[in-house]
C-alpha cells in the first residue's frame, strides 16, 4: 500500500483531498460557482463571450409549461433534455427521433410524451439538482457528433474534457461511450477515456475499466492515434473559459458537432480526477508549472503556446 502511495506521489497524481484543499478551494471563489453549476447561466456567458453552445430550444420551469409540452416540441424531432443544475450527467434524456406520439431515445427504446412530462416534473422539483432545490429543465439541440468519431463510439456522444488551470489547458482526454456505459460518457460507468496529446490533438493510449486498450470494445476500431479535428479551436475555446468564468481550476466539456463545429457542453468547477488515468500521468507537476509561470503568460496565445510546449507528449 505504501509502495503504491509512494509511486503515485512520485508521479504527481492529484487526489481528491489535495484537489479540494489546494486547487478548487483556493482558485475557485465560491460566488462564481453558480456560473458553472447552472447550465443556463453557462450558456448565457458563453454566448456573450462569443463561444458556441448547443442551441436552446426551450426552458421548462413550471408545471404549467410541462402540460403544454407538445406545443414546445412541435417543430423538433430530436432534442436533449437536461436539468439546468444537474451534476455528474444525472437526469439527461436524449431523444433522437419521433413517430406521431412516441419519442425514440438514443438507445432505441420508445417513450410517450407523458413519460417525458414526468421526467420534466422530476427535474423541476429538484430531483437531480444539488441539495434538491427547484430546478429548470433545458431542452436543447441534440449534438450530432463529427463523423470522425463514428467508428469509436457507441450510442452516445463522445466529449472532450480539458482541465484548464489559470487559463492554461493542463490536460485533456476524450471520453468515448460504450455499450457498457449505456451511451454515457462517464469513465466510472464504463466509458473509454483516451488521453489527448495537447500539442497535436491525437489520442494517446486509451483506458477502459482500469486497463489499457487499443481498440473500442464494441466497434473494434483503433482508439489510439486518432486525430481530433479542429484541435486548436477546441483548445482555444477551453482556454477562454477561464476569462469567461473567472474560475481558476475548471474542467471544460466540449463536443464537436458535424455542422456547428466545437460547442461548449458544460463547465465543471470540481472536475474529476480520472483524466489522470486516461493520460497515465499525474496532474500535479503540470499544475505546479503553471503556478510558477502564469504571471508571465499575458495573453491567450501565450497560454496556448505554453501549454502545447510543456504538456505535449514527448517521444
Amino acid at each position: 500500500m505504501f509502495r503504491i502511495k509512494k509511486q503515485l506521489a512520485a508521479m504527481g497524481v492529484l487526489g481528491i483531498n489535495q484537489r479540494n484543499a489546494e486547487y478548487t478551494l483556493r482558485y475557485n471563489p465560491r460566488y462564481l460557482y453558480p456560473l458553472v453549476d447552472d447550465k443556463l447561466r453557462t450558456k448565457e456567458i458563453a454566448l456573450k463571450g462569443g463561444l458556441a453552445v448547443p442551441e436552446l430550444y426551450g426552458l421548462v420551469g413550471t408545471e404549467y409549461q410541462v402540460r403544454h409540452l407538445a406545443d414546445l416540441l412541435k417543430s423538433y424531432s430530436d432534442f436533449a433534455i437536461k436539468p439546468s443544475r444537474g451534476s455528474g450527467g444525472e437526469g439527461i434524456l436524449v431523444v433522437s427521433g419521433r413517430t406521431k406520439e412516441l419519442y425514440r431515445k438514443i438507445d432505441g427504446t420508445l417513450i410517450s410524451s407523458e413519460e417525458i412530462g414526468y421526467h420534466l416534473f422530476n427535474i423541476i422539483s429538484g430531483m437531480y439538482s444539488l441539495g434538491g432545490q427547484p430546478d429548470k429543465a433545458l431542452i436543447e439541440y441534440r449534438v450530432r457528433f463529427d463523423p470522425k468519431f463514428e467508428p469509436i463510439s457507441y450510442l452516445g456522444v463522445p466529449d472532450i474534457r480539458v482541465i484548464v488551470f489559470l487559463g492554461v489547458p493542463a490536460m485533456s482526454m476524450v471520453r468515448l461511450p460504450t455499450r457498457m456505459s449505456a451511451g454515457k460518457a462517464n469513465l466510472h460507468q464504463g466509458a473509454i477515456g483516451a488521453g489527448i496529446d495537447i500539442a497535436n490533438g491525437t489520442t494517446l493510449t486509451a483506458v477502459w475499466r482500469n486497463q489499457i486498450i487499443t481498440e473500442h470494445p464494441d466497434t473494434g476500431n483503433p482508439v489510439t492515434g486518432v486525430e481530433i479535428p479542429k484541435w486548436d479551436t477546441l483548445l482555444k475555446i477551453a482556454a477562454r473559459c477561464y476569462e469567461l468564468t473567472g474560475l481558476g481550476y475548471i474542467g471544460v466539456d466540449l463536443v464537436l458537432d458535424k455542422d456547428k463545429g466545437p460547442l461548449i457542453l458544460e463547465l465543471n468547477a470540481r472536475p474529476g480526477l480520472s483524466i489522470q488515468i486516461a493520460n497515465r500521468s499525474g496532474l500535479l507537476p503540470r499544475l505546479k508549472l503553471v503556478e510558477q509561470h502564469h504571471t508571465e503568460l499575458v495573453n491567450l496565445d501565450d497560454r496556448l503556446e505554453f501549454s502545447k510546449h510543456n504538456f505535449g507528449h514527448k517521444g
Partner: protein
Amino acid sequence: MNKRHLYLLAGSLTAIGLILFFYKLIVMDFPLIPEVKTYIWSIEAHLTFEAGKKPVKVSMFIPRNSRRFTIMNENFVSKGYGVSVSTENGKRRVHWSIRKVKGPQSLYYHATVIRMDRDMLPYKPAISEKEKPDLEGAYLEASKALITEVRRKSADTDSLVAGLFKRLNTPEPGDSAALLLGKKATVQKKVDLSVQLLALAGIHARAVHGIHLEEQRREAPVIHWLEVYEKDSWLSYEPASGIRGVPEDYLVWWRGTEELVQAQGVKRLHVSLSVVRSEEAALQLAVEKGIIKKPILLDFSLFSLPVQTQAVYRVVLLVPIGVLFLVILRNVIGIRTFGTFMPVLIALSFRETQLLWGIILFTTLVGIGLLIRLYLEHLQLLVVPRLAAILIVVIGLMAFLSVLTHKLGLERGISVALFPMVILAMTIERMSIVWEEFGAIDAIKQGTGSLIAAMITYLIMTIKYIEHLVFVFPEILLIVLAATILLGRYSGFRLLELRRFKALSDIKSDV
C-alpha cells in the same frame, strides 16, 4: 489559507482541552476509568394498624450506618403524627405518636441504602448490654445441662456455636433443648435462646435481625442471625448451619431480643418490609454525597444537570466522536456514504437495537422501502409528495416491524422506532436515484458503504471508556474539534483512491 493560523488554532484548542483535562484528573480526582455502577437499594417499612380512639405510640427500630452500608435520604411518611428519632446504645428507633386517631392507619419509613465498605472501628460492647440469662428453675437447669454438654464437645467459639446450632436444629434435640425451645421452634427463638445459653457460658452474644437486599422484594422476610463478641470484634453466625459469616448483602435492621415494633393503643398491627434495587453511577453518587470536592468549576459541569438530562448528554456527547470518525472514514479512507452524517444517526439508533438487530432492521427497512419506491415510480408522482409518501410508508413499516417482532417475542425489534425515519426516507430516495442513474452496483456499493460507516461509528461510540471520558471530561471535545479542523486541511491521498489510481502506478512501472 494561512497554515500557521490553522496550526495555532488547533494547537491552542488542544492545549486548553488538555489543561482542563489534567486539572480535573489530577487536582479534582475525577476517575479516568469508566465508572462502576453501584447498586443502591430503596428500603421501606410499612406499618398498618387499627387505632381505637386512644392515644397511639409506635416505635420501630431503624437501620444505622454500618461498616458495609450507608443509610441515606431517610424519610418518614406519617400524616398528623409526631415523629422523633432516638439513638441509645447504638440502637436507632423512630417514635411516632398521636393523641387522637381512629380507623386504619398507615405509617411509612423510607431510606436509601448504599453499599460502601469502609473501615470503622468495631462497636465496643458495653458491659450493661451484656445479656443476663433470664432463666429460672427447670429452664435454668436444662440450659446449664445443654450448654455444658455442647461446650464439652467444642474446642473454641466457632465450634461451640456450630455445635449449639447443630443441636438446636436437629428434629429431636433432646429433652432439655425441647423444653427450652417450646413447641414452635422458630429461627428467632433459636437465636434468642443461644444468646442466653452463650451468656451462661460467659460468652457475649447478641441476636441480629435484618433483611436480604435483593433485586426486588415485597414483604421481605426478616432474617435472624447471631453475633458473638470475640477478640474485640463481632463475628456473625448463620443459625441454619452455625457456620461463621453471613452473606454480604444482609442489612442489619436492629439488634437485641426486642421486637421490631413496640406499639401502644393499636390493634391488628402489621409490618411489611420491602426492598427495590436500582443502579446508579458511582461518580454521580460521589458528587452527591460530597466525596468529590466541589469547586465552582463543578457547578458548571454536566453533573449539575438533572439526572435525565445527564443521560441525554451521555449520548449527545458521543456524536462528536462519531462525527470525527466519519470524517476520517470519508476523507482519509474514502468510503462513500449516503448523506453526510447519516451513518452517525444510524449508529446512534444501533445503540438501542444492538448491532446485529440494527443491521437486520436497517437493511429490511431500506430494502422494502426501495421496492415501494420502485412501485411509486410507476405512478409518476412529483418529488416532494413522493418523498412524503416514502416517509409515511417507512413509518408504517417501522410500526409493523415492531408489532411483528413483539408478537414473535423478539423484544429487540421494538426499538426499531428509534431509527431516524426522515433520514431513512431520504436514503431510500437517494439510493433509488443512484440505482436508476448509475446502476444497482453503485447503489449497493454506497448503501453498504453507509452501513459499514455506521457499524464502525457504532463500535467506537459504544466503547464504555469513551462514553465515560467525554462525559466526565467534556473538554475532550476541544481536542476533537482541533483534530477535525486539522483533518479539514488534509490533502493526502484517500486510502481507496490508491486503489483507483493503482492502474496508473502499475502501467508506469511496466514501461
